[in-house]
């Protein structure tokens, strides 16, 4: 029986941002940043509190309304959820501070700016809900909230390009939700429950309906995670949004649907997973890693470069799947499985910090110079050294250079590819890193260019807060490389992965 304080604590990551959103909707605009930040910090504290609860008491469940599954909806707090909750909080708070300063600075302010805080807090609540909820249909509603809030944030500036990109994003999100929901319906029809845990136990895995349900849900979530070739909506949407929104979209929103893919793969449909499907996902991921990084290299505008970089980095996330799925007829030990699992999640964490830092840094450059072109960064190392350094730190993690979170992730990934014998992923990983290094060093080279090359133009004033938050996130991307043990031990608490570690059979599913 879960204690009262645990029940309260487990609801806080969802309830606190929502209360903040409601308040920020009604109070005068000049107060919204302050209240918003107050609730941001409290939500972060609540997420840490929940992690502490996890560490001391293990898996926690909260049956909403007092009804247990399958009739009621269940919240489930385990290590995986805890890790993502903390990631969202640790990225969300600095981005919030950045936003407060950024919107004050950027004139003329667009009419949508007062809505930033209500929308962002609503979005944050939905992300936390997605991490915690264990009910398929509830997840659908949360995904819709996430989509509505994300698109509304993306169009905040009101510029024509943002509006069009936002509508495209919305259509993609809706189609994704519909595909997901169709899969949910087929799954419910097959098993009579919507609870993730109960489904995992009782789904008739060999049934064709279940496989099709799995495929549909995956297709929907893959659109939302923008895996190549379903990434068509992302570059425009993320690049035409305001800087703090781009950071939120790239660092956090795409991770939520990825989180769900992980859950489905490992917890719900682990009986229907096939080796071929895993390899296919990995192949798409590998192509994405190369293609996205290549496209980023070709861009002449800063924000588009960073957005294409997201497409590439997301590809790395999907290399986790072939490495956690054993080939049919495998016998014996498979010690690389846990490290592959950890590597994929680490990639998500490191990317969260690095990409948000990069988008914020680029946002500062654009604000300072007033132009999105590559040439804006000329000689920036002298004029905005903190921001350039933040960009460099972020780039280090994205490339996978030591010491950074990205390095830890890619190193573990490479080790897993070799110990599992799936050596063919390695060239793709390395190639992607080279291309990433290409665009990162291109920008850095421009920023170090001597002052004769740069037009001597006065920069727009850049508040220190903007630079400090970008730098903080960049440092976060590096620091996370040093705290691997804590993250790994947290992940192990009630890990859904641990139970699914078995070879797949010829037809799919586990023995």
């Amino acid at each position, binding site marked *: 029986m879960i204690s009262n304080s645990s029940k309260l604590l487990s609801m806080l990551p969802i309830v606190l941002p929502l209360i903040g959103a409601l308040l920020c909707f009604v109070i005068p605009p000049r107060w919204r940043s302050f209240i918003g930040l107050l609730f941001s910090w409290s939500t972060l504290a609540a997420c840490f509190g929940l992690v502490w609860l996890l560490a001391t008491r293990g898996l926690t469940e909260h049956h909403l309304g007092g009804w247990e599954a399958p009739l009621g909806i269940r919240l489930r707090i385990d290590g995986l959820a805890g890790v993502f909750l903390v990631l969202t909080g640790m990225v969300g708070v600095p981005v919030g501070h950045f936003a407060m300063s950024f919107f004050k600075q950027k004139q003329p302010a667009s009419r949508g700016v007062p809505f930033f805080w209500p929308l962002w807090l609503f979005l944050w609540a939905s992300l936390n809900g997605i991490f915690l909820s264990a009910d398929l249909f509830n997840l659908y*509603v949360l995904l819709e909230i996430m989509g509505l809030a994300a698109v509304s944030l993306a169009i905040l500036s009101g510029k*024509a390009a943002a509006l069009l990109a936002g*509508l495209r994003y919305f259509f993609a999100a809706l189609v994704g939700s*519909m595909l997901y*929901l169709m899969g949910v*319906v087929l799954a419910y029809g097959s098993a009579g429950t919507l609870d993730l845990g109960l489904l995992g136990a009782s789904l008739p895995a060999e049934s064709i309906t279940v496989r099709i349900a799995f495929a549909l849900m995956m297709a929907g979530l893959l659109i939302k995670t923008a895996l190549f070739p379903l990434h068509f909506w992302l570059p425009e949407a993320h690049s035409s949004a305001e800087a703090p929104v781009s950071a939120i979209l790239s660092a956090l929103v795409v991770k939520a649907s990825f989180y769900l893919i992980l859950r489905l793969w490992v917890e719900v449909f682990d009986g229907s997973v096939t080796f071929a499907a895993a390899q296919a996902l990995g192949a798409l991921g590998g192509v994405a890693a190369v293609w996205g990084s290549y496209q980023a290299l070709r861009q002449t505008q800063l924000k588009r470069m960073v957005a294409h970089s997201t497409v590439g980095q997301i590809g790395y996330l999907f290399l986790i799947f072939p490495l956690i799925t054993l080939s049919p007829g495998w016998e014996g030990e498979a010690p690389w499985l846990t490290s592959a699992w950890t590597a994929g999640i680490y990639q998500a964490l490191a990317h969260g910090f690095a990409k948000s830092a990069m988008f914020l840094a680029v946002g500062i450059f654009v604000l300072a110079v007033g132009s999105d072109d590559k040439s804006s960064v000329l000689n920036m190392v002298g004029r905005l050294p903190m921001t350039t350094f933040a960009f460099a730190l972020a780039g280090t993690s994205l490339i996978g250079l030591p010491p950074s979170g990205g390095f830890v992730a890619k190193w573990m990934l490479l080790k897993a590819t070799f110990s599992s014998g799936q050596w063919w992923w390695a060239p793709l990983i390395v190639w992607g890193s080279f291309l990433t290094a290409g665009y990162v060093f291109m920008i850095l080279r421009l920023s170090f260019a001597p002052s004769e090359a740069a037009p001597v133009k006065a920069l727009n004033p850049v508040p220190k807060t903007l630079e400090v938050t970008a730098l903080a996130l960049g440092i976060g991307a590096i620091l996370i490389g040093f705290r691997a043990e804590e993250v790994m031990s947290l992940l192990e608490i009630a890990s859904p992965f641990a139970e699914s570690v078995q070879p797949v059979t010829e037809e799919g599913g586990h023995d």
Partner: protein
Amino acid sequence: MDIEPHQLYAVTAGMVFCMSLAGVFLCRHFFQKIIAINMLGASIFLLLVSIGARDEDGFPDPVPHAMVITGLVVAVSASAFALGLARRIHRTTGRTGFSDTE
């Protein structure tokens, strides 16, 4: 072959689902895309209710009904937002589709 009525509706739902999915991509105008997405949702709801109508104890499963009502409200909210956004785009740029040349 003994066909249950709910099976008929379920198969129809599948047909409409696929038609609407093709429609979302193939229709060029924002307005028709929005209608196609609503049809997509409607087909899923039809499948859901037909699952709920499988003869269990004489009365239908209430959970799919609740899911459909929720889904209807979500669909209309999303449609209202999409319509507003599409109209704003039309107002500012005159476009009615993504691949317009106008």
